[in-house]
């Protein structure tokens, strides 16, 4: 069962989110997701394990960090090793031996962002595989079929993804098509008892289009909603307004998943705006470039200034890297060809993200979320004149003042 009931149709989709606390000022909520592979505390950050692996850290290490849900990418896995093989391996959980939850996206975003030769029609997205040149069609039905084979706990609808910098009729076309594709995904979904299908709100940066999308999609009784089409090249000012608009129109008793968001400030603000779930490649990717995330920003550990810095990355961090190693050692290791350097930083950056979410959650439960936000901003930026305007405005819009 996808949550706890025996419903077989989406007309009474399971309520997988249990709210535990709400901030009395802002829209921040703390809760618990009930998923087939165990509970997940929210707000939650989900690390991205694109190709059935969390980039150099083992399933055991990821579990030890407290991660209970992470992402896989349908586009990549659909090509290599393919859904048939994964099915033989007892699904994606079996293939990568991950005992906790998995969320797979539909492949829509990669189709458009990664592939130069892709063509979108009402049918689906037609594209050429970069590995063998074969042409395939990723339709809503095919995307759900692949995700059914992968067996992830949360699956995403195939949406018509348009870059947030695009304007004009294409945005409207994509929005309405996404609604139609949502219905096709719902109809094609064969494993409603084991996998939760989320809708993805589109509409670009146009408030009217987004509102229309919200109105339509919330008529479909899916277990959760994602806010898509953001976190591209748009300005932060436009970004937060679309997030706020979306959360104001999404049902309170269902999870809100903001896709592609991962910078610390963005996470804090968007939790204030009422989002529950986040994913982003940033923390794991930046680790592999030698960058460690800290409450004041980041440390570029390859730089000479760290050569004799014998402190850990963050003395308050409980992760294995900070417990055992100094910045100086990591600096030396980063200048060698031992990949362990990258793994040390990946472990730390994931720990940083998860610790941040944990701290956010605790502050909501303990009714001190606004203070937490103020402290966070102070630590990150120091001088209030350096606070990003968009963040100040976004927080003000939900009753949190930073002055």
């Amino acid at each position, binding site marked *: 069962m996808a949550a706890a009931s025996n419903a077989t149709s989406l007309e009474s989709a399971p309520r997988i989110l249990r709210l535990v606390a709400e901030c009395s000022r802002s829209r921040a909520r703390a809760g618990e997701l009930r998923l087939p592979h165990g509970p997940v505390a929210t707000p939650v950050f989900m690390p991205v394990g694109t190709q059935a692996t969390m980039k150099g850290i083992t399933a055991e290490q990821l579990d030890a960090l407290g991660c209970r849900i992470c992402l896989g990418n349908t586009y990549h896995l659909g090509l290599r090793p393919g859904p048939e093989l994964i099915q033989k*391996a007892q699904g994606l959980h079996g293939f*990568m031996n991950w005992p906790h939850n998995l969320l797979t996206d539909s492949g829509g975003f990669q189709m458009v962002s990664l592939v130069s030769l892709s063509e979108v029609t009402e049918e689906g997205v037609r594209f050429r595989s970069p590995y063998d040149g074969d042409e395939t069609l990723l339709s809503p039905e095919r995307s759900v079929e692949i995700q059914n084979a992968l067996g992830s706990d949360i699956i995403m609808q195939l949406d018509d993804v348009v870059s947030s910098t695009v304007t004009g009729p294409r945005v409207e076309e994509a929005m309405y098509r996404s609604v139609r594709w949502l219905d096709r995904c719902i109809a094609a979904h064969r494993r409603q008892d084991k996998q939760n299908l989320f809708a993805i709100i589109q509409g670009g940066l146009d408030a009217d289009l987004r509102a229309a999308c919200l109105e339509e999609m919330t008529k479909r009784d899916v277990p959760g909603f994602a806010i898509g089409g953001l976190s591209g090249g748009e300005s932060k000012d436009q970004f937060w307004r679309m997030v706020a608009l979306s959360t104001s129109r999404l049902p309170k008793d269902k999870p809100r998943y903001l896709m592609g968001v991962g910078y610390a400030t963005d996470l804090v603000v968007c939790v204030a705006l009422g989002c529950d779930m986040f994913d982003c490649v940033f923390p794991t990717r930046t680790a592999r470039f030698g960058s460690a995330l800290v409450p004041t920003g980041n440390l570029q550990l390859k730089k000479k200034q760290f050569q004799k810095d014998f402190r850990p990355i963050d003395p308050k961090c409980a992760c294995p890297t900070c417990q055992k190693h100094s910045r100086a050692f990591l600096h030396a290791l980063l200048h060698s060809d031992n990949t362990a350097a990258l793994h040390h930083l990946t472990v730390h950056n994931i720990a940083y993200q998860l610790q941040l979410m944990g701290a956010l959650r605790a502050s909501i439960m303990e009714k001190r979320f606004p203070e937490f936000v103020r402290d966070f901003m102070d630590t990150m930026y120091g001088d209030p004149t350096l606070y990003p305007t968009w963040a100040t405005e976004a927080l003000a819009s939900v009753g949190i003042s930073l002055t």
Partner: protein
Amino acid sequence: MKLSLTKVVNGCRLGKIKNLGKTGDRTMDIPGCLLYTKTGCAPHLTHHTLHSIHGVPAMAQLTLSSLAEYHEVLTEYKEGVGKFIGMPESLLYCSLHDPVSPCPAGYVTNKVLQKSTIIGVIEGGDVMEERLRSARETAKRPVGGFLLDGFQGNPTTLEARLDLLSSVTAELPEDKPRLICGVSLPDEVLECIERGVDLFESFFPYQVTERGGALTFSFDYQPNPEQTLLQQNGTQEEKQYVDQSKKMKTASGNQEMTPFEINLKEKKYREDFDPLVRGCSCYCCKNHTRAYIHHLLVTNELLAGVLLMIHNFEHYFGFFHSIREALKSDRLAQLKELIRRQA
């Protein structure tokens, strides 16, 4: 540091090096190997993943070549390289060179480390007279042990130098450990042990990892009767395979695939849901399949190196454990025959 021999069988020494470490209470089994590191860290492995491996040697090998540029940093650090690299409890051996990276022969100065034991290096090329001279003279010095240098190279060269090796070790005192550098293949390890060598570097499992390979050679010299039957039935195929791999080995040198491993990049592993080695107790074999490792290699994922390194180290350390066990129970000949058949 004190070597105490339990037994010597046909020139093979079984024993323990005692009184190691700062407090003098650590021991190391011989024959044994050192943990290979790059810049003070096992390749691909963090502390967590390294310690998931069973049988990690008590002594790690650092290479001066990777740490020399941090001399100033370490001086300022003041607390020693062991703590700096996050291995404060480990015994450490520092070699001049990294056995994996080719090094030009030449004159290199050594720094004197007051509280550490110095290992004397035996040189002399392929000239018996020089080798004997080096051995005798070095043995007169107050060194803690001996490094047998210059025996490494491609597979055929070690074979040619085995007699030289025997003559050299015959000149060395029994109660001091003998290390050899650049020799890490299982069959060569056994040949060297038979000629009085005690300690080896463990870079071979690393090389196998880097080419996407997993060590699969058997060191179970006491198989159950069922397995013996299977082995007998398999001798025809085995012979063909052995002949083929012998060709491979002599033609392309040490850096290419050996008969001791499988290449997980091969297509045939794509749907193989067995562990790398059945019965292996390493984290990789207990949790993952050949198909998964194959996928990680095909997609160039970092985790491939991590998981293969875990398995390859554990397998290799298990091999050394079996050598010691075989010596204890006087079964080294069986182990040697088993390895020889697979080489």
